[in-house]
């Protein structure tokens, strides 16, 4: 409940503040979004599994974003930024998909 409220507050804050993203950080924004979604789905699944841990949630979110951005940054420097961001999206996408399937199993028992 409090998580949903906080999510809504974050959305509203983002809409109201409309922060301008520095152009240097622009390529990492989509990656950050994927990492954030992964953290959310992981947290939801952990909660349904009964092993949710707030510390793990926050740390995994932050580290996911940072590591994903770092990988893409490194790839950009080495000339394989596009491929590496694809790799990050694939890995995180698989995780999101698996977590969503687990959540579905929990909720609908199907």
């Amino acid at each position: 409940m409090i998580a949903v409220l906080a999510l809504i507050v974050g959305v509203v804050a983002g809409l109201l503040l409309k922060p301008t993203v520095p152009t240097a950080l622009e390529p990492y924004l989509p990656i950050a979004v994927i990492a954030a979604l992964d953290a959310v789905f992981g947290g939801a699944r952990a909660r349904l599994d009964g092993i949710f841990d707030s510390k793990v949630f926050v740390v995994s979110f932050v580290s996911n974003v940072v590591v994903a951005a770092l990988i893409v940054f490194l790839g950009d420097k080495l000339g394989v930024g596009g491929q590496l961001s694809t790799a990050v999206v694939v890995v995180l996408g698989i995780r999101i998909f698996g977590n969503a399937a687990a959540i579905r199993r929990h909720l609908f028992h199907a």
Partner: protein
Amino acid sequence: MTSPGRRSLNTAELLLAELVTNTLDPGYAAAARRREQRGAESSPHPPRWHDHVAIVVGCLLVGFVVVIAYVHQNRAAPDTATVHDALVQRVQQVQASTDQVAAQERALAANVESLRNAALGSDGGLSAELQQQELLAGTVAAKGPGLQVSLSDPVAPTPAQTAGRKGTVPVGAVQVLTDADIRSVVNQLWSDGAEAISVNDVRLTPTSAIRLAGEAVLVDFQPIASPYVIRAIGNANSLDTAFASSSIASRYQTLQGVSGISFTFSEQTSVTLPGSSSVMPRYAQASSSTTPTSTPSSSSTPSSTGGTR
């Protein structure tokens, strides 16, 4: 995957299987295990003060990041549209102001002319001479019989037009005509005895240039577009016959059949050409101070009027 299944997986396959099957962050399981080790006898969920704070902060961040990305992504597209619109608007604005200034300039020139005519009114000879010079320089509107030549690009490369063999018509060649075509027609008209020429209502002066910039033909730095109408004043009959028999005309008649341009020319009983804004020569000076206007080659009469006084 044929017989034993599990054991035949090598490292890479294990990695992939791990990726697909263990989608949950291993941190959760580890934390749960730690909790169990710490105290299985205590309550299963010991409320810690930072639990709620961490969840709130995390969810706040997630929502924030997602919305920023969304807003950013959707703002970029309208931004480019806005920039484009602004540029178009600016170009239109500047064009309008150019037109306005040109109109103002024409009005002022007319004013100057009337004032000058009033001043020169007593001496008819001088005024007539001035008018002739202005006509030659193309600074005043001119009227008279002449010829009108129209050239225009093919409308659209429709498949029906490609009646001939494949390859005879360049597909997608919408812009066939360039500055060279306009120039050759204009040159032909001059050599046929035209006294004044305008291209799409831009009067040609002794300093006019017809060039190509990007995809636009520029006449005296004014862009003109496809239906090119070239009007010339002169002896309508001789202009017509001379132009019709010229190689230029036959070339464009051929091109008309081949590449689908439209090319027509017709004798006109009365053509009105606009005046061009006068260009004052800043560097060129008459080589002798009192050169008679009738003879541009000043070397012919060196003795009588030569020398600076």
